[in-house]
């Protein structure tokens, strides 16, 4: 009921927005941020929005010149509710507003349907956090991402499970979203290739809170490792129930669960849980440390993807500067060839639009905090 009402409003809003031409003397660059700002994943979405806001404020304060013309960056933020349908409405609205580029969406399930709309309109899209392989595999020139994809992450996790944890039997649960399912499939394929047996493949959804039935069923199969591909609102309670039902297996998850929210929701049960996250450990580089400090001073703790959303906005504007134009069709080739170093490390794209050499780091909960651990 709620969502339907929101769609209606969104549709009305997009119908009502007449193409506005910039009248100001300065060139106005419109950058869109698309992420879930309501619903279970609102926390992560707000994080991305804040990061783009921070990047825009910094760039405006420093002054932006595109092709000898002074420019002002404007942020347009939209709520895609982590919902594929809402995401296409948001994308259409951005197209109607003749936006110069989009930072988003957060979820693969939202990025993928939206990417077709952006591609048809020739608008550049950099997703800070969508990791499903399908996103860049569609062949759209306009689709880029800054995070290692699920192929890279699934392989790193599978290596960790089979080589470091030496797991022989593995149970896999996913939340049937584009992200969860894609990652679980990759992990499944890679652990089997490494010689481990998948003893259970269970499913849930991204609204569920009760996992007792699947955990009990998994417990009967006595796996060494339980892998969950999904987000923290499910991973947290799942961890509690795993402990509550005395399933004694190592809990393994990925970037969707490597959040402060997971620690909060799992409570004391989080201790010992392992999760991967694409990218480098921010605290290990001076630039990364500085970013954490300034972001947290302004908006509080980083949930997960903020540095990627921040770099997505900056990288996009850097490509515009190099092209001397904010026209997505003109700066897209420059973005494809970009080579710079940001707070997340080296930023360069391969032919598909995936980040080259996407690093994956493994973390474990120790004394109530995520701590990077050796991945070999």
């Amino acid at each position, binding site marked *: 009921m709620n969502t339907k009402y929101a769609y209606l409003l969104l549709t009305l809003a997009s119908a009502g927005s007449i193409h506005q031409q910039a009248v100001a003397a300065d060139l106005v660059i419109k950058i869109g941020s698309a992420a879930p700002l309501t619903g279970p994943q609102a926390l992560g979405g707000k994080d991305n929005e804040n990061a783009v806001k921070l990047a825009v404020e910094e760039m405006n304060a420093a002054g932006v010149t595109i092709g000898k013309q002074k420019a002002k960056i404007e942020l347009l933020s939209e709520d895609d509710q982590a919902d594929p349908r809402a995401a296409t409405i948001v994308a259409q609205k951005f197209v109607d507003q003749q936006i110069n580029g989009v930072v988003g969406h957060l979820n693969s399930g939202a990025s993928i349907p939206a990417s077709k709309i952006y591609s048809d309109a020739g608008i550049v899209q950099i997703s800070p956090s969508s990791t499903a392989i399908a996103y860049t595999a569609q062949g759209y020139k306009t689709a880029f991402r800054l995070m290692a994809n699920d192929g890279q992450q699934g392989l790193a996790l599978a290596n960790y499970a089979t080589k470091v944890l030496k797991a022989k039997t593995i149970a896999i649960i996913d939340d049937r979203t584009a992200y969860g399912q894609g990652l679980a499939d990759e992990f499944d394929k890679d652990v089997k290739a490494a010689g481990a047996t998948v003893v259970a493949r269970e499913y849930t959804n991204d609204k569920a809170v009760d996992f007792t039935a699947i955990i009990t069923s998994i417990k009967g199969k006595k796996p060494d490792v339980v892998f969950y591909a999904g987000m923290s609102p499910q991973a947290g309670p799942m961890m509690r129930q795993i402990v*509550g039902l005395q399933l004694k297996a190592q809990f393994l998850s990925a970037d969707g669960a490597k959040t402060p929210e997971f620690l909060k929701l799992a409570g004391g049960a989080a201790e010992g849980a392992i999760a991967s996250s694409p990218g480098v450990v921010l605290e290990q580089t001076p630039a990364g440390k500085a970013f954490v400090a300034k972001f947290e001073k302004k908006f509080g703790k980083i949930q997960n993807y903020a540095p990627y959303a921040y770099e997505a906005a900056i990288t996009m504007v850097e490509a515009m500067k190099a092209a001397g134009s904010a026209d997505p069709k003109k700066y897209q080739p420059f973005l494809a060839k970009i080579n710079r170093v940001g707070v997340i490390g080296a930023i360069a794209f391969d032919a598909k639009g995936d980040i080259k050499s996407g690093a994956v780091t493994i973390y474990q909960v120790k004394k109530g905090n995520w701590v990077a651990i050796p991945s070999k």
Partner: protein
Amino acid sequence: MDVFLQQLINGLVSGSIYAIVALGYTLVYGILRLINFAHGEIVMIGAMIALTIIGLLGDSGLPGVAIIGLGLLGAIPCCMLIGYLIERIAYRPLRHAPSLTPLITAIGVSIVLQNLAMIVWGKEYVSFPPLIEMQYFPIAEASINNVQIFIVMVSTLMMVGLNYLVNNTKLGNAMRATSQNAEVAGLMGVNVNTIISLTFVIGSALAAVAGIMVTAYYGLAHYDMGFMLGLKAFTAAVLGGIGNLRGAMFGGILLGIIESMGAGYLGTLTNGVFGSNYQDVFAFFTLIGVLIFKPSGLLGKAGSERP
């Protein structure tokens, strides 16, 4: 066998929660023939209020059980008041309106309460602090923990209590009379408005307790948690025969067990064609099945519907 027994325990626990929430639906339906879709939201508000109190008392040094008890004591009267106000403001003016009007109003109240909760408690998940040390008790090869025992015990107690209240007290007599024919009950000296208000207040108190059980069990609360829970409990009420108290209890527990068994075994039985992702489907599949073959519910009497 250990897996089967464990699934049975899991189902019994979630079923007890469904049963308590289903009682709220069935009580109101029994008297007003109104499906109070806002009932799930009262469960959510109960959980949120209790968590707020628990959060405030977290550092007070009181024992965990006492803090939870105080959370319960705070949440119950608040929910009772909200239940009373909903009836007084939203439903009473529509008592003689066509039956579709209060139904739409109920959905409206549900949306209002959900959004209010989002404004007050935010969009984030609120977590239940680890106040209780988990203790496990083995039953054959399965095990049950203290939170699960607590949930089943409290639910049973409330079900027995409510059953007694409705069938053996003067108030219950008045409730049943109002349910059968409000006008005649009024002529016999029953204050119909008071009885209806009391029904909402009792249902809301049950909802508050259910809310705390849900957060203690799953460890979290969220502003839209009431929607799915409400829908499942409504299914349980219809399954048992809506308007019938024992039916709601039976339906709730049955639904919990069906879900748990379904999610646990369907994958194995169908060799992976259907898996645990169909867990939520069971609730609604069961509902459709019952509506087709026994529209009055498992324990409902055919033709008991007031003309």
